[in-house]
């Protein structure tokens, strides 16, 4: 069965999302963006949709259709159609049954045919993203859309080759995206300030069913108006300062338009922004003039104050129609790019007296909600296998009582992980595996889930045996720990039930403790690691001394032995400072460089005698000295 996609078919922009692995993801367009302009351009027999259509709009104004959603399922003599016609540059005429249709080169297109082009792009992008055919969709419409408009939207989907599984209200989709359907009965206000339209919807939800109590809005209020306000301000400031009117210079106006939009976006994150456009025009004396302005957030808020206030009236009306007061609203959801503006958020928060939901990207929230609805229909959501996660880190105890993690907390199960460990002492024939659960650095501070011994390891130098420890948690949360000696093939295992079903309190307690002791634990762990390092260095040096000691000068040898003794003493001391230990390691290593020197000399002597021999036999030998043995990848642990 193919996937069902969720489509937010917007007036200004559209977006597509789909459920994947149990969560909704936005489908990027072929241009690599998360949303695309709802614009369709006709050029000969070609149809251009989205960003490319927007780029050729000026050139092809009469054949480029934007905001077609305003005409969906409406008659030409509809007052809203009459108003919308004033804002578009293509021809809108009367079609069948008095319906508004778009006329391009004398050919009539119904709004659903134009919308179908937008939906076809959504379909194509989804297919290329998913790598499979897509023929089913959930499409969103404004809550105020009447039956004719909903039918028209459904038809648009069908023309595009999509079976429309459901038409969902945009505010409902937004609420779904926040999972508000799972929070029991409540009243939700959805404040949607997009690129060109403003909608407010009051929804009531009970038993997973959404009911639209009222809607209101302003069909010509949106981000574009905010941009215009900034542009106007820039132009008037420049005129004040330089006495030049930039509105007559299309090149300058284009640069101002771009910087106004940029400034608007920047002011959502910072308190002030610079608008710098050097060489914007020339003065009467031929001198270059520069545009340099600082726009503060406060100034911007002042400029758009009217626009923001304009949205309040519809909100009040919607509440009144729903016979509710602001305080009766349980949840507020923000939709549309303009709701990123801090002032808009603040105004909404003040009006409703509660903080609005704003975690999901407001440009994508409707498409995300549509995908959630699509997931419910296709069974992706209802039947979703809720995969458990390990609440706490699982690991084993290693040398010096350190906890070495194997499976980190919050790992989705079933999962399995292996790591190779080795012995800590020469001729060690058994290792103890202590299975730990918790977030603390030291083994002793964690919960021991069980322990077992793997014996029969063939006697060898420390660090040589390879013991593979495997943690495997099945979907029931049962942990199987296996330790296997790779040489002898001997293995031991333990099964631990209930490794995941800790109570929430237990998990929280353990996490809180780990956080509390994080610093101290880290210091302790580092000290032990230093001690382990010191022991390992001492062990290595002693071995080398035994082998090459005779070639050393007596004084050097004594010094190294003295250093070694000190190092071992320090490493054995309980309350040694990590810095002292590191220093001792350092000085031991430095003094032991002498061993390195004699080792090299001894090897050189060996090599030269070997090459002499080879020469005398008249053969050539290749230099293999740089071909090192593969290094043991695993750190020596328990």
């Amino acid at each position: 069965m193919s996937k069902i996609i969720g489509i937010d078919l917007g007036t200004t922009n559209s977006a597509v999302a789909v459920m994947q692995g149990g969560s909704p993801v936005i489908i990027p367009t072929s241009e690599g963006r998360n949303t695309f302009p709802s614009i369709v351009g006709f050029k000969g027999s070609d149809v251009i949709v989205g960003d490319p259509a927007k780029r050729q709009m000026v050139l092809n104004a009469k054949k480029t259709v934007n905001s077609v959603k305003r005409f969906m399922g409406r008659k030409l003599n509809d007052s809203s159609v009459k108003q919308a016609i004033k804002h578009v540059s293509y021809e809108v005429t009367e079609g069948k049954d008095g319906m508004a249709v778009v006329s391009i080169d004398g050919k009539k297109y119904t709004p659903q045919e134009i919308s179908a082009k937008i939906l076809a792009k959504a379909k194509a992008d989804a297919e290329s993203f998913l790598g499979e055919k897509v023929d089913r969709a959930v499409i969103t419409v404004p809550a105020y859309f009447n039956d004719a408009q909903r039918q028209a939207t459904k038809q648009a989907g069908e023309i595009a080759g999509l079976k429309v599984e459901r038409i969902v209200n945009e505010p409902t989709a937004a609420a779904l995206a926040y999972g508000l359907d799972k929070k029991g009965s409540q009243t939700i206000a959805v404040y949607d300030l997009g690129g060109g339209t403003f909608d407010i919807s009051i929804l009531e939800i009970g038993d997973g069913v959404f009911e639209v109590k009222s809607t209101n809005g302003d069909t010509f209020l949106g981000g574009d108006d905010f941009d215009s306000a900034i542009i106007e301000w820039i132009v008037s400031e420049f005129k004040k300062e330089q006495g030049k009117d930039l509105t007559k210079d299309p090149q300058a106006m284009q640069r101002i338009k771009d910087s106004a939009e940029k400034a608007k976006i920047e002011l959502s994150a910072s308190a002030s922004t610079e608008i710098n456009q050097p060489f914007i025009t020339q003065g009467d004396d031929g001198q270059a003039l520069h545009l340099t302005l600082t726009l503060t957030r406060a100034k911007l808020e002042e400029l758009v104050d009217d626009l923001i206030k304009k949205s309040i009236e519809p909100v009040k009306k919607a509440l009144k129609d729903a016979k509710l007061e602001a305080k009766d609203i349980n949840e507020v959801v923000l939709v549309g790019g303009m709701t990123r503006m801090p002032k808009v958020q603040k105004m909404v928060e003040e009006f409703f007296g509660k903080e609005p939901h704003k975690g999901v990207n407001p440009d994508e929230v409707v498409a995300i909600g549509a995908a959630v609805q699509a997931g419910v229909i296709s069974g992706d959501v209802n039947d979703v296998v809720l995969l458990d996660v390990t609440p706490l880190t699982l690991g084993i105890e290693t040398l010096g009582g350190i906890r070495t993690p194997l499976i980190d907390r919050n790992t989705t199960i079933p999962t399995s992980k292996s790591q190779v460990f080795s012995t800590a002492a020469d001729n060690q024939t058994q290792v103890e595996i202590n299975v730990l659960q918790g977030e603390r650095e030291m083994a002793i501070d964690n919960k021991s889930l069980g322990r077992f011994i793997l014996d029969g390891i063939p006697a060898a130098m420390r660090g040589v045996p390879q013991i593979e420890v495997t943690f495997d948690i099945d979907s029931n949360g049962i942990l199987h720990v296996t330790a296997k000696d790779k040489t002898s093939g001997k293995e031991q295992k333990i099964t631990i039930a209930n490794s995941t079903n800790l109570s929430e309190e237990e998990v929280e307690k353990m996490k809180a403790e780990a956080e509390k002791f994080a610093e101290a634990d880290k210091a302790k762990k580092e000290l032990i690691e230093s001690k382990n390092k010191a022991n390992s260095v001492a062990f290595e040096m002693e071995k080398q001394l035994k082998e090459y000691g005779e070639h050393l000068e007596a004084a050097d040898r004594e010094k190294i032995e003295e250093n070694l003794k000190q190092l071992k003493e320090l490493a054995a001391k309980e309350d040694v400072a990590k810095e002292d230990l590191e220093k001792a390691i350092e000085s031991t290593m430095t003094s032991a460089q002498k061993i390195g020197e004699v080792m090299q000399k001894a090897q050189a002597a060996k090599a030269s005698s070997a090459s002499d021999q080879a020469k005398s036999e008249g053969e050539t030998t290749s230099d293999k000295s740089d071909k090192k043995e593969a290094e043991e990848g695993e750190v020596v642990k328990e």
Partner: protein
Amino acid sequence: MKNKQTEKVISEEQQKIQELQLLLAASLEREKRALADYQNLQRRSQEERRVLIRMANKDLCQALLQPLEHLSLAAKNIQDRGLDMVIEQFWKELANFSLQEIPVLGQKFDLQTMEVVDKKDKGEKVIEVVRKGYQLHDEVIQHAQVILD
């Protein structure tokens, strides 16, 4: 009597088998879906990684475009050989990272690389460039804003 009982048991068992078969089919379907989702995710993240590495400098390049454009404007106004050299140097370095200006002036309008901001007459060829266009490798990172004849 016994036969009837046996039949009843058989029919119950058959029903159970049917239920289990349905359950199994659903589980298998879900497993396949999860695997497919995972494989698709893997494929996509590999592709994303490839693009990410290739386009790692995209944001930086995009951020540099406006100051560089302004520098060019300054050079045009000030007409200083030294400044021209500096700008040349800049572009040489950026070209090493495969950032290149898209030549548009005098060209026929191309939807893939240009955006029209104004047209004087027929609207065929570019007579003025309001903002230069650039591509990084073969991806357009800034469309040229042009005025057509």
